């Protein structure tokens, strides 16, 4: 943790370094005491990391306003998004990714405009004509580029090559990526969207405020960069539990079944996930939940493989996030991930339920019952 903290301080130092000479440097440097205060004053760990994430993102944005064309800033951003926690860094793969990102950044150099805040001035940064979107786009690619399998790390170099194509071909490639995104498997979507962003940067001038806002907000959650990159739609699929949550922790293969007594209620919510279900396509039947004489099918889509958003597994996963998630985010940094459990509602035409029976149905994958949520009383 201490080495991670040093890395964050090093990133801030890079921000201050690129902004040196401008009077914005002092404002950026204020992030250091702010981080010290946040670390000292905020006790809840998530709130503390959230606050630190916001402060660092603000400092980074400040530095980008002054000097968005600096490689140091790109490396700092990549470090923040990909190298935390340091103990989990796979050095050679990350070196390849970094080289690709630098190549991409250099290749995109012609897209960049001159920064507005020049040395020693107080000129206000401008939104819309200020720093280019290149840095934002390359950092978006940095966030989503997988290193498992190793070959995927070369995607950045492929993108760098595409960026050098003539504008029409580049635009066509970008639009093709966007058009393909809804039809490919879930784990390719972030890659295609980021690639489209990179390829369409010259054509997105009008959307800059929106892009900056999205970039800043996403960058601010760098303490959970892995989960943000691989499970972003969880933000809109999240629904917090409202009733009492009773942990269960059962795993059921095909033909296995277990029953759980519950206090009488007309409906319950079961949080379930799949094990060994990484390669299952959407809609695959995993099992059943029987209650009050009714049976509820549980399929991928309702739930997901519990660890499919892990860095090592995501590229190979074939199904998407569950429709409703309780957003159980684990870990920190690039290796953080979202548990694949989904919330499955169980009711039986208004009858009172007092017993839930869970039955596995898939040959290789198991249905995992994580917990049962009783209605709020």
């Amino acid at each position, binding site marked *: 943790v201490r080495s991670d903290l040093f890395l964050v301080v090093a990133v801030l130092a890079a921000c201050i370094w690129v902004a040196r000479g401008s*009077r914005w*440097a*002092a*404002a950026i*440097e*204020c*992030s*250091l*005491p*702010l*981080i*010290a*205060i946040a670390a*000292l*004053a905020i*006790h*809840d760990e*998530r*709130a503390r990391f*959230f606050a630190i994430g*916001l402060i660092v993102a603000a400092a980074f944005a400040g530095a980008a306003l002054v000097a968005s064309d600096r490689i140091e800033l790109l490396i700092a951003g990549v470090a923040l998004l990909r190298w935390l926690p340091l103990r989990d860094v796979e050095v050679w793969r990350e070196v390849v990714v970094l080289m690709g990102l630098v190549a991409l950044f250099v290749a995109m150099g012609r897209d960049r405009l001159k920064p507005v805040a020049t040395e020693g001035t*107080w*000129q*206000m940064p*401008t*939104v*819309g004509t200020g720093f280019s979107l290149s840095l934002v786009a390359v950092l978006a690619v940095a966030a989503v580029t997988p290193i498992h399998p190793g070959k995927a790390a070369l995607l950045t170099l492929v993108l760098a090559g595409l960026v050098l194509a003539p504008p029409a071909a580049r635009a066509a490639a970008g639009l093709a990526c966007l058009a393909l995104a809804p039809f490919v498997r879930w784990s390719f979507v972030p890659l295609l969207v980021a690639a489209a962003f990179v390829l369409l940067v010259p054509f997105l001038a009008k959307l800059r*405020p*929106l892009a*900056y*806002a*999205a970039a*800043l*907000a*996403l960058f*601010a*959650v760098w303490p*959970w960069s892995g989960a*943000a990159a691989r499970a972003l739609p*969880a*933000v*809109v699929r*999240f629904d*917090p539990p409202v009733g009492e949550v009773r942990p269960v922790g059962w795993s059921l293969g095909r033909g296995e079944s277990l029953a759980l007594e519950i206090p009488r209620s007309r409906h319950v919510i079961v949080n379930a996930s799949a094990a060994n279900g990484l390669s299952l396509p959407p809609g695959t039947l995993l099992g059943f939940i029987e209650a009050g004489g009714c049976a509820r099918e549980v399929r991928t889509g309702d739930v997901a493989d519990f660890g499919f958003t892990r860095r090592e597994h995501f590229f190979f996963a074939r199904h998407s996030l569950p429709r409703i998630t309780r*957003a159980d*985010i684990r870990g920190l940094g690039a290796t953080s991930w979202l548990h694949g459990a989904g919330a499955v509602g169980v009711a039986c035409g208004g009858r009172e339920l007092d017993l839930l029976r869970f039955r596995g149905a898939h040959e290789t994958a198991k249905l995992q019952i994580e917990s049962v949520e009783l209605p709020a009383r």
Partner: protein
Amino acid sequence: MIVALFAAVAILAPLLMLRPRALWRCLGAEVVAVLVFGALAAFARMLRVTVDPYLACVAAGAVVLTIVMAFVAFAEDVRWSANRAAILALLVYALMVPLMLRTPPDGDEPYYLLITESLVHDGDLDLGNQFRDIARTASGRADLVPQIGDRIDGARVRSHLEPFLAMLMVPGYAIAGLAGALMTIALFGALLARSTVRLFEDEGIADATTRALFPLVAFGPPIVFYAARIWPEVPAAFFFVEAVRGVRQRRMGRWVFAAVALVLLKLRFALIAVLLGVAAGFSRQKGRLKPAPTLIIAFIALVLGASRIRELVPESAVAYPIGLFGLALDGAAGIAFQAPIYLFGLIALARWRAMPEGFRLGMSCAALYVLALVPRSEWHGGWSPPLRYIVILMPFLALGCAALYERIAGAPLAIAAASTVALVIHGAAYPYRLFHIANGENAVGEVLSRAYHADFSRLFPSFIRPNFAAVVAGVVLIVTLIVFRGGRLLRPAVVAVTIVLAGLFAMRPGGRIDFEDAHVVHEGGVLFPEEYQVARFVFSGGWIVRAGDAMTFLAKRGPAKLRYVSDGGATIRIGGRAFVLPATTPNTYNVVPVEVDREGRVELRGLAGTVNLDWMRHD
């Protein structure tokens, strides 16, 4: 409603102050900020980050308005004039009014309102019937009783507060009740903003400098809080600035009117008016002296303020440095922690001869007032938002700051600006925290002390309950006043390291434990004196422990001294050792030696009797 008001100000302020090019950039930046906050709110919900939603809303609004103010301060295409600055100030103060009304008015505020109600409804200053029918007061303070110092004659009650402020609020109150009264003060705040900008112009401060400092002064503490609450300080500051401008411009009508209004607002301000009169009357005007107005003002001021003259007689020599340094450095009530931008104004005081004439006139006219204030036990303002008694000086300290502005390095300015924004957010979101019981701690120290059960409050200089940090801060201030060349050494990185080291230091046991402090974990017992005791600061704070009550705190091993008062004597246990505390005469504290048998967290438990424990100091 708060969100709607923030949105309205965030749109109207750029329309008012910026030309099209800067306007669109500013609105774009605001949109980006709003989108970012929206997205972060969604992320925070998903991550189950628990933040007070009201605080988050106020903070987001304040950050958006900070963007607007940054454009006003630094953009090139700004429509800048004193009148526009005043309208901008009125917009922001109008936003602050409902924020301040989150909790009912406090301190003297409801009493000023009571006088206004008496004037409006009865046409007199007798508050007797108001107190009898107190449930109907617009402040919602049904708990009000006559204050100490009020004249009570049978059923008639005459407030000791000067009625002029209440008279000024009569039209506003008659139109819109409490909100109208508060908007009257906000209007004076806007007038103060206009006068301050005019003062800067008169004194030759560049527009760029004025624009850069204006948001920090007008929308920073303490003015922003006093402009949205019912205290006479902001109208007084307006009249003071106008009086000084009148003297500088040799416009007798203006300064005499302003000086009289100043004295009517609070008799204590007569000390300022007298010196203003001297400065005006004995300055050469068209080749001859005109002492008449001076003598008239001096006479009125002396008659009205005769009782205040006694306050100039020193009570205790040590009271002067305590009050003076306290106003500058106290953690709860000093400029350094409550309005840091004005520290540069203090530094300007040390460069007296290089400062603008208006600064020198204003500060020298306030000298008697400050001299009368600092030895008083309530130099810190009593039950009021911080810096109450020196709000009136703020425009002049700001002028000093403006005169130094070009020489100040970016880092100290950035630190002061960031602190100002944080203080405004804190005060706007939690207006009740602007009031502090003056026990020697401050809001930050208390929060950290409670969180870590360690004495963080001792890191903050306190002149209310003088501590070692106060001595260190005093020395640092003196050295800074002498050697300040722009503050290039004060890097935020240095501040960050200092915070970390201070945090580590605070985790260790301190040399003195004040038993009523936030870091002490109490199990039973009661605070002495009670929290809302009038003039609490004149008492020795403590914690009353009875048999069975206990408290734990970090302590050092070894001999120590314990200060207490106990009518019938008591027996206590500290760690593993019991001590008999002999009976004391009532209200006479005794100090006895005790021994702490362990290092670290120690329990003090009452075994028999009742004792009011003040402090324990390690030898």
